[in-house]
């Protein structure tokens, strides 16, 4: 059962092959049996899941099922879930029982999907290896000594190990795509504004975007059909019609113009990753696509720009964690300032504190123009690169990550080397464009991800391009040996 896709599970429930309750129970048992090796979950909500499953079975029996009713999923622990701890991977929120549901969570509830639990993540989504979580590192099911990527590392590891058929993630600088690549699954970051940010704990508000993490592009389309749409409670939500993302999956790719940015294939790219990505592009040629070399000249500036914009916004967003109304409070504060300082000093981990400090510095008197304003100007140049590229091509392809999964501990002492692992994913966030990572083979025994970036609101095309590749390759069906 656990090797079935969302589409197959949904068909199985509807045909009566198994009930939602049976399916949910089998996943809970699998999580209990196997997650000790991975640490991909922070909270497993088994009682709630079984209640939701029984309700879904009734709804199906009454003939009121939607496409995914009764199918289980897990949420990254950044999404508020009413009555369930929402920790964001932090000691700061270890005791935080969310008093409401994020819009993404309520949409899945309305669709009748079953929540198995909350997945592990880098603290406040700040990290590329899932090593900064207060609840401990997540392990990559393909090699337990390596990282699953981050920050949505728990969601990625759980989907890759077949502990859940699908999960939600969030992507501020690559946090859906990079872990998807490192664990051999499919991940989609939609256009900024496509999915509501309401109830998603904010890191960098002009960059954060939620999206699906699944095994196949078809499943990602089914998930996005539920997630996408206008929400008046998110002031940057786009009021724009939502297409059926499965409608264009089967279009052929004849004449598709693929841009290959020369900056994505240069120095710093592992040979094994380059080889797998080049082989994937050969497959696209066989499918009738044309390949054009393009240039995104400001690619190298995306990491420095991001590490001003994201910390600046994070220092502002995380000022709400002050030990007063919710979250962690230090013992015996001697005055209000001591309460703020020690609650924050003790409640946040090192990486979160570093980023808050960088942001506070960049926004402080006398430095704003040199850092934040400068970064916003570069953001324009990075975005303009893509605008020009999309005059020539339909999609852009390249590696998702410059390397395969690296060993735990290898980069955790050196923030800058960790930051550079997001070099190919960050630009799409700065520009607000949709991007995907699709399994495209292996380097050694570890998976490689192919990144596909599209123009604004062209998620349907991305999913079509990914799905067609998955019709002629089987990388997305491979499972790690011990989790088959």
């Amino acid at each position, binding site marked *: 059962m656990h090797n079935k896709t969302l589409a197959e599970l949904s068909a199985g429930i509807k045909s009566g092959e198994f009930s939602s309750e049976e399916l949910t129970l089998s996943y809970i048992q699998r999580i209990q049996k196997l997650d000790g090796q991975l640490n991909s979950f922070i909270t497993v909500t088994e009682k709630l899941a079984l209640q939701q499953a029984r309700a879904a079975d009734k709804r199906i029996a009454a003939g009121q099922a939607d496409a995914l009713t009764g199918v289980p999923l897990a949420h990254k622990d950044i999404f508020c879930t009413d009555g369930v701890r929402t920790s964001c991977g932090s000691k700061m929120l270890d*005791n*935080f*029982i969310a*008093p409401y549901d994020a819009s993404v969570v309520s949409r899945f509830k309305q669709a009748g999907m079953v929540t198995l639990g909350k997945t592990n993540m880098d603290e406040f989504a700040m990290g590329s290896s899932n090593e900064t979580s207060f609840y401990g590192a997540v392990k990559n099911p393909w090699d337990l000594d390596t990282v699953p990527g981050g920050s949505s590392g728990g969601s990625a590891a759980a989907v890759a190990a077949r502990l859940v058929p699908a999960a939600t993630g969030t992507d501020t600088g690559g946090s859906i795509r990079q872990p998807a690549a490192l664990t051999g699954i499919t991940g989609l970051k939609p256009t*900024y*504004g496509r999915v509501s940010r309401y109830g998603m704990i904010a890191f960098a508000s*002009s960059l954060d975007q939620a999206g699906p993490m699944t095994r196949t592009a078809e499943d990602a389309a089914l998930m996005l059909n539920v997630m996408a749409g206008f929400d*008046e409670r998110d*002031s*940057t939500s*786009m009021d724009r019609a939502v297409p059926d993302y499965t409608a264009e999956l089967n279009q052929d790719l004849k004449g598709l113009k693929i841009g290959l940015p020369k900056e994505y294939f240069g120095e710093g790219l592992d040979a094994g990753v380059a080889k797998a990505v080049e082989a994937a592009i050969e497959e696209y040629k066989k499918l009738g696509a044309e390949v054009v070399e393009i240039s995104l000249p400001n690619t*190298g*500036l995306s*990491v*420095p720009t991001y*590490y*001003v914009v994201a910390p600046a916004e994070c*220092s502002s967003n995380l000022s709400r964690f002050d*030990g*007063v*109304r*919710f979250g962690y*409070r230090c013992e015996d*504060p001697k*005055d*209000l*300032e*001591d309460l*703020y*300082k020690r609650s*924050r*000093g*003790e409640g*946040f981990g090192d990486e979160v*504190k*570093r980023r*808050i*400090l*960088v942001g*506070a*510095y*960049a926004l402080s008197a006398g430095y704003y123009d040199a*850092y934040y*304003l*400068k970064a*916003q*100007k*570069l*953001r*324009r*140049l990075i*975005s303009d690169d893509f605008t020009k590229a999309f005059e020539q091509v339909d999609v852009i392809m390249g590696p998702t990550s410059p390397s395969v999964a690296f060993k735990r501990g290898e980069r955790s002492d*050196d*923030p*800058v080397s960790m*930051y550079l692992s997001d070099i190919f994913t960050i630009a799409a966030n*700065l520009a*607000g*464009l949709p991007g995907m990572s699709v399994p495209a083979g292996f380097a050694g025994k570890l998976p490689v991800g192919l990144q596909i970036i599209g123009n*604004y609101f062209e998620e349907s095309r991305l999913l079509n391009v990914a799905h067609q590749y998955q019709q002629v390759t089987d990388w997305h069906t491979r499972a790690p040996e011990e989790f088959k």
Partner: protein
Amino acid sequence: MSLDKADVVKIAHLARIAIDEEMIPEYTNNLSGILELVEQMNAVDTDAVAPMAHPLDMVQRLREDQVSEENQRDKFQEISPKVENGLFLVPQVIE
């Protein structure tokens, strides 16, 4: 740009974050390393470029000034570290 310990102490105060004395050298190193990375931005002349605050050109949506949320004070106070009679408690501020 390289920071010194006094800079880090000042920024930590601005951000209201207590940092242990013995951790300050490590923070000083790491933050200086990050700022060095960030300074690669200066390689490009941006005098004529308009800053981009947001990925999509959009205007702030307005709505009627109507009450849209119900009062859930009790529910929100259940998760607070310290409350009394419907108030959030903090150490005494005024002597």
